[in-house]
């Protein structure tokens, strides 16, 4: 590794430089060899273009065109050979739409679909026309999905985020309106019920209008009013409570956080709902601060409304509480009720201070969702220091994920956005702040590589790894931090197989890793750090860059290279200098940190494991020594024998009820209270002697509160025969002999 230095490699680069200018130009339009298969994205089926579906709360908020067409095929195309033509027609439609979008056509899917239909009909001859028209009609009628169609370009991250935010906002608004409308309805019902009890509601005019036109001549409403007013109760609402309810209603109806939706009638009209999407953090924070008093008022009204509806508002208790109600009383749950603030920033375009402000906003727990779109990962090429950022582009945001403990952080490239849309939605739904760092793939200095491919390469080469930090997922890093969305997350670099045809038309395959170097050689800003070479100039000391990065190469002066293809699709070894290798090392280091955080090859865990293994080995060693010394260690068979021994049986539990019964003297009167059916027989005979307990079941409260005769009569009349009269307590009571005989069956 020490063998690589600028001094050593630079002369060699010069030596390898092709002299022919034409050849040179062709070689400069190069890209990594693994991209060779993706030359024309229009002809490939992949995630983009995306359809931003406008649903309210459904799961498929964004769909890929390919998914939409596949769904269509599954639904309307007959399976097997008879559906073949139809299937091809639909796939052609997909290709045409994709082509239209790639040419810059925008709009809704339905519009693009119609345009594509026209193109397809035009391209087809008259023979196939009838069939095609019929099939296209059917497809159009079946196509339910609609929404804006977007391609992978510089506007994609913001449009995607705004769409997702709108989706969440719509479902939040729905839940909000349901709750608030319910409260408004119930509060209005209280006022309405109160009005109906008032004398005004019993006035002849109101009574007349209540009866309607048909019969209103049959009644004397004045007399009716007189009768009703005289007989009415006066349990009206207190003026104070009425005022309180009216004030709360006013606040609930005039809030501006969500629009009224369909039920505009129950809201105060002409209130314009607030906007929550901003292009700078300062405006978002100002808006939040300005709206804070309204939020406090609203939450206060909400709490009072709920208390009023439950009829639990106690002025003595609640008035002081609500008088000192201020923003310090707002909880995270309260804040979650309101829409979050979405700020879309673009690294490089937005003010650099904005990024700092966004980080501050996130750190302060302000409910903001920030999108930072990155268009350039590696930065400008400058040989002068500081050049530390080169290769470590993602380090800054990863470090921030560590710092802001309570913020949701999600990073990815726009190529993976569709696949990871749930992560975006989760971040937007998260109660606290969230940061979305998205690489658009639109780096101006890269030519010939479409943004989708470049974005995918950024993830693939670890230049812009995907990761999620979700504080709501659990208490520890293991549950919060996730890097599994990266290709081959266990590996330092993802390994792929490259297959090609050599000069003798033989198929050759070899595996190699995609590294940061592969990503950088797409960028023309760095062209002085590499030179493509054709086969005639290959040297024995050439080593693939990934090999060099992982083990330093086997020869003394390795010349690192990566496989690239030129504009003609010819394979080249592009020799790179140590600047690029250095950058790749830095990138690998950042990735290793992410891996550790994500639980892969975690150094702490490894150390502990090593220590545990060592002590286990030592333990084993000691055991072996002890065995060698002749001491009898417990044999497995002995252990089994111990385990097989039956456990001593626990003593049978005593039955306390029996004991209790035994303890009771047979002479004492008693009732089996638990079996009492509350039928009032005994209590009607003597309600001092027989009394109901807390469960409204009878027991003998005082056996001396009545005569033995009453006791026996109660026993006789008891429907479930649970009264046991015992022996008489007063020996002087008349007719005792007869009573004792009657009591006998019940004792």
């Amino acid at each position, binding site marked *: 590794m020490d063998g690589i230095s600028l001094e050593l490699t630079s002369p060699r680069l010069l030596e390898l430089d092709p002299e022919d200018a034409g050849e040179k130009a062709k070689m400069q339009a190069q890209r990594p060899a693994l991209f060779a298969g993706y030359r024309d994205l229009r002809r490939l089926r992949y995630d983009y273009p995306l359809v931003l579906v406008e649903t309210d709360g459904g799961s498929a908020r964004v769909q890929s065109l390919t998914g939409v067409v596949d769904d269509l095929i599954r639904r309307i195309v007959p399976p097997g050979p008879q559906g073949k033509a139809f299937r091809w027609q639909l796939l052609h439609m997909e290709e045409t739409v994709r082509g239209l979008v790639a040419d810059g056509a925008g709009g809704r899917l339905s519009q693009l679909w119609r345009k594509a239909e026209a193109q397809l009909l035009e391209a087809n001859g008259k023979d196939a026309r009838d069939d095609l028209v019929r099939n296209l009609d059917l497809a159009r009628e079946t196509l339910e999905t609609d929404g804006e169609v977007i391609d992978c370009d510089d506007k994609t991250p913001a449009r995607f985020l705004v769409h997702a935010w709108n989706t969440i906002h719509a479902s939040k608004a729905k*839940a909000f309106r349901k709750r608030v409308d319910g409260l408004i309805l119930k509060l209005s019902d209280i006022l309405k019920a109160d009005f109906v009890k008032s004398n005004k509601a019993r006035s002849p005019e109101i009574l007349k209008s209540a009866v309607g036109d048909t019969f209103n001549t049959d009644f004397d409403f004045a007399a009716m009013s007189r009768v009703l007013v005289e007989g009415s109760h006066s349990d009206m609402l207190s003026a104070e409570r009425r005022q309180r309810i009216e004030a709360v209603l006013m606040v609930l109806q005039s809030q501006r956080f969500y629009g009224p939706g369909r039920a505009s009638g129950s*809201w105060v009209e002409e209130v314009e709902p607030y906007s929550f999407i901003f292009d700078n953090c300062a405006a978002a924070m100002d808006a939040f601060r300005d709206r804070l008093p309204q939020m406090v008022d609203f939450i206060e009204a909400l*709490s009072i409304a709920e208390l009023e509806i439950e009829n639990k508002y106690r002025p003595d208790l609640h008035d002081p509480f609500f008088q000192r109600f201020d923003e310090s009383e707002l909880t995270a749950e309260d804040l979650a009720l309101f829409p979050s603030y979405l700020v879309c920033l673009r690294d490089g375009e937005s003010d650099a201070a904005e990024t700092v402000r966004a980080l501050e906003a996130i750190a302060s727990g302000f409910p903001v969702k920030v999108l930072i779109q990155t268009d350039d990962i590696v930065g400008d090429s400058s040989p002068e220091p500081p050049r530390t950022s080169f290769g470590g582009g993602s380090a800054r945001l990863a470090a921030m994920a560590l710092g802001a403990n309570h913020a949701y952080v999600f990073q990815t490239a726009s190529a993976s956005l569709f696949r990871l849309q749930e992560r975006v939605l989760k971040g937007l739904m998260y109660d606290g702040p969230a940061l979305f760092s998205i690489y658009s793939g639109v780096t101006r200095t890269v030519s010939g590589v479409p943004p989708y491919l470049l974005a995918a390469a950024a993830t693939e080469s670890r230049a812009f790894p995907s990761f999620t930090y979700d504080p709501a997922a659990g208490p520890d890093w293991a549950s919060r931090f996730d890097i599994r969305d990266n290709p081959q997350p266990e590996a330092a670099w993802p390994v792929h197989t490259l297959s090609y045809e050599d000069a003798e038309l033989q198929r050759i395959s070899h595996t190699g890793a995609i590294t940061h170097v592969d990503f950088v050689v797409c960028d023309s800003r760095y062209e002085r750090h590499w030179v493509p070479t054709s086969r005639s100039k290959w040297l024995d000391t050439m080593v693939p860059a990934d090999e060099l990065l992982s083990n330093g190469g086997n020869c003394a002066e390795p010349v690192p290279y990566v496989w690239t293809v030129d504009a003609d699709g010819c394979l080249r070894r592009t020799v790179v200098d140590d600047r690029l290798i250095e950058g790749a090392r830095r990138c690998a280091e950042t990735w290793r940190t992410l891996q550790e955080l994500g639980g892969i090859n975690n150094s702490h865990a490894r150390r502990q494991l090593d220590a545990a293994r060592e002590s286990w080995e030592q333990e084993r060693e000691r055991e072996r020594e002890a065995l060698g010394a002749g001491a009898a260690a417990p044999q497995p068979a002995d252990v089994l024998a111990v385990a097989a021994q039956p456990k001593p049986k626990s003593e049978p539990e005593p039955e306390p*009820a029996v004991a209790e019964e035994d303890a009771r003297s047979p002479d004492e009167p008693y009732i089996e209270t*638990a079996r009492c059916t*509350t*039928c009032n027989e005994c209590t009607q005979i003597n309600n001092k002697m027989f009394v109901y307990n807390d*469960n*409204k079941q009878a027991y003998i409260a005082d056996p001396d509160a009545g005569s033995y005769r009453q006791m026996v009569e109660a026993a006789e009349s008891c429907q479930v025969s649970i009264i046991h009269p015992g022996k008489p307590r007063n020996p002087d009571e008349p007719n005792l002999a007869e009573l004792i005989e009657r009591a006998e069956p019940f004792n």
Partner: protein
Amino acid sequence: MGRPMHAPRTECLLNLIDQEYAIRDYQSDIPPRWCTGCGDNGILTAVQRLCRDEQLPPEKTVFVSGIGCSSRLPHYMNAYGFHGLHGRAFPVAEGIKMRRPDLHVFVTTGDGDCCSIGAAHWIHAIRYNMNMTVLMHDNQIYGLTKKQASPTSPRGLKSNTTPRGTYLDPLNPLTVTLGVPNVSFVAQAADWIPEVLYDIISQAYRHKGFSFVRVLQRCPEFMPHRFDAWVQDPSLTRLVVHQKGLTLSADTSRTYRNQEIHDPGDIDRAREIASLTEEVPVGILYRNPEVPCYEDLREGERPNTPGLIRTVLDEEFDKFTIWPDDAPDRAPAE
């Protein structure tokens, strides 16, 4: 939204001032006017115990009834009540639940009220499976009107309307209920086993759905010895027990030794048990918490506020309105 929106502060404040309800708080000013010895008293006690143990706020609890001795129960409860038309307790209760799902709805009905004049409503109430607790007091006679045969009266019973005895076998409310689609809870209790009665009513209350409890109820006035055999001989009562259903105390278990372990999820066995004639089954015969409740199926996205109703109606009328040329701008509704 994955999580329901709560206002914990309000709940906290509510808890602070929550009062503790005792049984007497559920007793109305009117003392029960059932005959002394009547089984309805025991049912009232069990219901009042349930309200106290669940701490149901009286203003959030409604008892709905039809006509009959059983249907007097709402008068004796200090809660909201609706003493409705004969056989029409169910539609009233369904209306209440639909409009005010936050209320705890109980229906008390009798064998005549439920199985005769109200049978149509009963069948459909089972099918609708709205969340309410139904207590069907079955004394097998019309008692309030002084002894006429009801659909559950035993064959041959002589009454004012059947002086030569009834001609038909009685209707079995358990098998009927178990035969209706969407049935979700069926149990049988007896007023003379108060512990089990309370336990069954309490489980019926906790079941989300239409919980149908038939309570065998003694009428000492007009059917004086009808249930004597079962009251006096516990072996004639088969207690249907299960760890997922009814469990018994040691005392009850010792008295009622005739027990069957029956999983309340097994509807086929439930129907067999319900059809027993010699023995009286007592316990939870069937329970299926998965059956959806009608009020949930029909829950709108938002409450039907007067504003929403007006807006929707206006939109409908607009479809048929011929607008003059100077019509106001009609923005499409959201």
